[in-house]
């Protein structure tokens, strides 16, 4: 294993054991990814289950129900049984103490076989309840929460992109005595725990009458933040100054240079911080919990948490909403994966 690890770290391993090594790596990665994916599978399958299955057959990873057959007018569960070395499909018509059961051939219900139930294989069939989704959506103000979440996410994103572009431009293209110091100050706020300013902000927003509106989650985005300014500035620095100079000779002012030279060049970086912001705002729970009090103003994160509290026993509905909540980030991630991982590599901080 030690040796294996060493080989893994060299990028262009050409030794003979290369093949074996890649095999071991694939094996480890595959078993790990099963552990990663099973919870997702459980979430999706539970969201499609019948509540009865969740109670009786909770460990199954598939939405299913027992296969039944009509025996003398009643539906009985069907089993695959082995009698005298032959495999047949029989119905279980009666449980007997001691783990035994009476099995019959549905075609000849008068001949009863007593068999140990545990040794027989119960048959199931698919039982997918798509209607759990509309039911879950109707059980809570889903569209309202979704609307609030989208407003917070996208208006906030617009504010963030607008303000951070301006500020990053200021920090990347101009020389002034205090700018470097201000930039250090900006960077130092990355480490600042939000708790140290959150309580007075709550009091401030309360005085302004903004508590229990979406404003506390949106307005601060219009005043730039350290992460995104840092990422955009780093990217702006890589854009050649000659482009600015050429535009200046043509009589462009600084704002025009930003709009027509810098921003078009920086599109990957802008998309990248936009995605980061989406994920942050979509998943954020702490601030919406603190600032939003009445149900109609909640975002999906807070709404889902409360739904979980009220509908505790309706696991299938809670999982349906949970699936709906994780679908947008996953879709976004798949469609922008290249830009996304570049962005992470670029900052190495946020992600």
């Amino acid at each position, binding site marked *: 294993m030690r040796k294996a690890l060493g080989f893994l770290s060299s*990028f262009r391993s050409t030794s003979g054991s290369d093949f074996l090594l890649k095999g071991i790596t694939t094996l480890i*990665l595959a078993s790990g990814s099963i552990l990663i994916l099973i919870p997702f599978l459980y979430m999706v399958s539970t969201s499609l289950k019948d509540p009865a299955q969740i109670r009786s057959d909770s460990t199954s990873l598939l939405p299913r129900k027992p296969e039944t057959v009509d025996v003398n007018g009643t539906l009985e569960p069907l089993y695959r049984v082995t009698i005298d070395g032959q495999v047949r499909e029989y119905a279980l018509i009666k449980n007997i103490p001691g783990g035994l059961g009476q099995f019959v051939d549905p075609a000849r219900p008068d001949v009863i076989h007593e068999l140990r139930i545990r040794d027989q294989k119960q048959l199931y069939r698919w039982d997918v309840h798509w209607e759990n989704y509309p039911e879950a959506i109707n059980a809570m103000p889903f569209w309202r929460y979704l609307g609030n979440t989208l407003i917070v996410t996208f208006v906030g994103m617009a504010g963030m992109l607008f303000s951070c572009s301006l500020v990053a431009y200021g920090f990347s293209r101009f020389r002034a005595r205090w700018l470097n110091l201000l930039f250090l100050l900006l960077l130092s706020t990355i480490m600042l725990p939000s708790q140290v300013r959150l309580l007075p902000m709550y009091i401030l927003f309360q005085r302004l009458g903004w508590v229990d509106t979406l404003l506390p989650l949106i307005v601060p985005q219009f005043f730039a933040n350290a992460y995104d300014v840092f990422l955009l500035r780093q990217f702006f620095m890589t854009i050649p100054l000659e482009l600015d100079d050429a535009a200046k000779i043509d009589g462009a002012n600084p704002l025009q240079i930003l709009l027509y030279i810098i921003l078009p060049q920086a599109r990957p970086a802008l998309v990248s911080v936009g995605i980061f912001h989406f994920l942050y705002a979509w998943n954020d729970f702490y601030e919406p*919990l603190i600032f939003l009090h009445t149900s109609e103003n909640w975002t999906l994160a807070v709404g889902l948490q409360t739904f979980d509290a009220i509908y505790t026993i309706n696991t299938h509905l809670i999982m349906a*909403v*949970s699936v709906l909540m994780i679908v947008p*980030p996953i879709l976004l*991630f798949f469609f922008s994966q290249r830009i996304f991982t570049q962005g992470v590599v670029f900052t190495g901080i946020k992600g």
Partner: protein
Amino acid sequence: MSFPSLQKMSLARREALAGYAFVVPWIIGFLIFTIGPMLASLYFSFTKYNIVDPPQWIGLANYEKAFSGIWDAIRTGDPRQFKDPLFWKSLQVTIYYASIALPLNLALSFFLAVLLNQKMRGINIWRTIYFLPSIIAGVAVTILWVRILNPRVGVLNPFLKDVLGVQNPPGWLSDPEWAVPALVLMGLWSVGGSMIIYLAGLQGVPTDLYDAAKVDGANAWQRFWNVTFPMMTPVLFYNLVLGMIATFQYFTQVYVATSNSLGGLGSPQHSTLFYNVYLYQNAFRYFDMGYASTLAWILFIIVLILTALIFRSSDAWVYYEGQLKGRG
């Protein structure tokens, strides 16, 4: 756009002025949403303040509440000697979680990053799978894990019992002994977030270092131990300290997992009373903004100390890399 007054200024002054103008949004935000609230919370930390009535100056009483009794508690070993035992409990829970979660998290994410840094077919699919949980971190994922870990109806314990033969699988979030390990398990599932940072770090290790090591006759293990690992120590340490800071702000998972339970937030028996959870309770359940501000400032000072450690360590790193390059 030409203003007569601007025309008269020197080019350098005009440039400086434009620079300041562009960073104005951040300066305003910094004053209103950062430095102003920070000073206000520092002031509140010396007051008794319930939002409704005006703040009342009480000097160091809040800090005294947090710290007094410490000597008696240490001397007698009895946590009841603390004036505010829950403050110490929350520190203990936070550090306990960090001491299990961070080493596991660091080791696992580093290991995965080394595996995923290979050049092989389909590597991007593996990277995607491992990164996936970290982009959906939050309420939905915690709700999912609460179900999975549920000792009565969850899927984990039947698996442990029937497949792995564990006789008495733990009660996880309902057992004070196992609540923090359960949260650690949840955190490990989302290890992809720090893994991707290592991956970025690994891809930044200059290949000429490996070439030089090969010329010197280093085998694969020696190359890993003498090149890869030292080059990655700053990233390791960075992730460690950032993980520590994040633990002091740990909140959502505990809130979602415990606020609906019988024992309430931080249950069972305060075993998940993380620092930030206790701060939230004081601020928004008891509306004791004064004491909550004190807790926030104590948190700030802890984070400052940890940040100072980052800076000190980065000195050591720069020196070390220089050494390596000198040898090559």
